[in-house]
């Protein structure tokens, strides 16, 4: 399993557009991917799950991937978070 923490820097937090880009980009991976925030964990492949967390700017979230393509999935997530301006680290 690989796990990484991110600080959300988009001043609008995780809204529909960036959330769609993130969820849309990882649906093809086999690994189980979760997003943890504030003690709750959701499936990162679920747009409703991601939006339901109501993540605001400045929050720290944990993303974990577990499966055969976990490294590739994590690399993709890194790329999308930066490209969409959701997080810069």
């Amino acid at each position, binding site marked *: 399993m690989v796990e990484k923490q991110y600080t959300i*820097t988009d*001043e*609008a937090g995780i*809204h*529909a*557009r960036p*959330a*769609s880009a993130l*969820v*849309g980009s990882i*649906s093809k991976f086999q690994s189980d991917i979760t997003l943890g925030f504030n003690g709750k964990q*959701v*499936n990162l*492949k*679920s*747009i*409703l*799950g991601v*939006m*339901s967390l*109501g993540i605001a700017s*400045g929050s720290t979230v944990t993303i974990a991937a577990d499966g055969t393509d976990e490294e590739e999935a994590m690399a993709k997530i890194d790329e999308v978070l930066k490209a969409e301006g959701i997080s*810069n680290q």
Partner: protein
Amino acid sequence: MTSPLSGIAASTGIAIAKAFRLENPELTVEQLQVGNPAEEIARFDAAVAQSAAELEVIQEKTAQQISDKEAAIFGAHLLVLSDPELIGPIKERIVTDSVNAEFALQETSDMFITMFEAMDNDYMKERAADIRDVRKRLLSHLLGVKIQDPSMIDEEVIVIAEDLTPSDTVQLNAQFVKGFITDIGGRTSHSAILARTLEIPAVVGAQNAMATIRNGQTVIIDGLEGKIIVDPDAATIQQFEQEKSAYDAQKAEWAKLKDEPTISADGQHVELAANIGTPKDLAGVLEHGAEGIGLYRTEFLYMGRDTFPTEDEQFDAYSKVLKGMNGKPTVVRTLDIGGDKELTYLDLPKELNPFLGLRAIRLCLEMPDLFRTQLRALLRASVHGNLKIMFPMIATVEEFRQGKAMLAEEKAKLLEVGIAVSDSIEVGIMVEIPSTAVMADVFAKEVDFFSIGTNDLIQYTMAADRMNERVSYLYQPFNPAILRLVKMVIDAAHKEGKWAGMCGEMAGDDIAIPILLGLGLDEFSMSASSVLKARAQISRLSKQEMASHTGHILALSSSQEVEAYVKGIS
């Protein structure tokens, strides 16, 4: 004529046309036992596939006809259709309870709708509407009920609906749909936002429109006031037609001015800029054709959170604004906290007179780490645009020198480690304390510009708390005392070849504008929505003529006299 209905004015303009009721089909869901769950799942999968195909068409059409941003909504709808946390439980429910797909869909999606509606955030609450929209589409396929297609409308109408889903709204053809009225919704609902993008009038939250308005009745919708008139008589129609042409003419005049510089009737240029609080306000600045940002209030970056924003967070926000302005002047005011603006995580002792206490630049000089972090973020962002830095609440020349020295030190440190910083950052001050206005000739030798903050300048000059209703009569922007101070500041700037702007509410006021133009103000910064109106006003005023009146105006004895005189000359 029936009694007028009313609601929330969601998008400005006036329209007169026949009513077209957009009815929601009856999509009643019954719970049924099914014998073959596998067949039921196949039926559900087929409905998902049909809905996805429809959404792809709508998404493409929206991207072509409206914008990629609006089209993205349907990208999100497509993701909902393939969401494992929604589709998975629906299928499980079909199998474990042997129920029909409609019922499983209804029950499962209800859970999500309830969850989003309960969220403490208007934006997230609106997302419940997206889930309802997707569900309605799926149900129509499962039940074989045809949904009324608003894109089929081919005559001029005003659409009346209980609510418009995002997919209804983008299918409204702006050529025929002259406006719409919904019974529910608010100013931030998707349909309201889209109406403003399409520039058609809309009234939302009207409550009884569906219950009272019949198909084909003539309806007047006044998106300025939120009024709705059904079956108007001839005189009323005539009255609104006049209002409509006046509004349309004004809008056309303003639209022509959007990409134009601000030029007075005698050919003098002044700069009209906008005030902003966050990078999100940029859209409005560009939409209203402001020539720059005259005041970026950075304190919003610090508010509504538990810790100070990091240097990187600030850098991101400043860079975004500077890039968005694409080389146009952008005046950023350093942190203005204290007074009526408190930070919960900055535990400052209570003061007896917060407006006369440790606030703005005073606080920043007292807490240099806080200040230097902001200065570094600004310096790093400076390479992305035309940055001007402004210190608030300067009372003495010494304060300005201290702030400027810290800025120079941080710049030197950044350059030392190889970080690029712009070489042409102007550094100026807010003039909001009378001592600074009086000493403007001395300040003008050291600062690059002045920006007059009228809200505070008035309250400090008149010694009247602007929040205290019992002395609010003393809050007089047109009092000759204020105007004389403004003149001193402008004259002092010009004598040293510097510029003077104004970023208080007064800069966008239609009585103040002729006076300020005559006094020679170089930059007027106001809320973005006032820019086009001010530009239209200035285009009709002669700067030279206004200047010829200033001697008389400054010699008047009261605010009322000034107001009456200006009304007479402009």
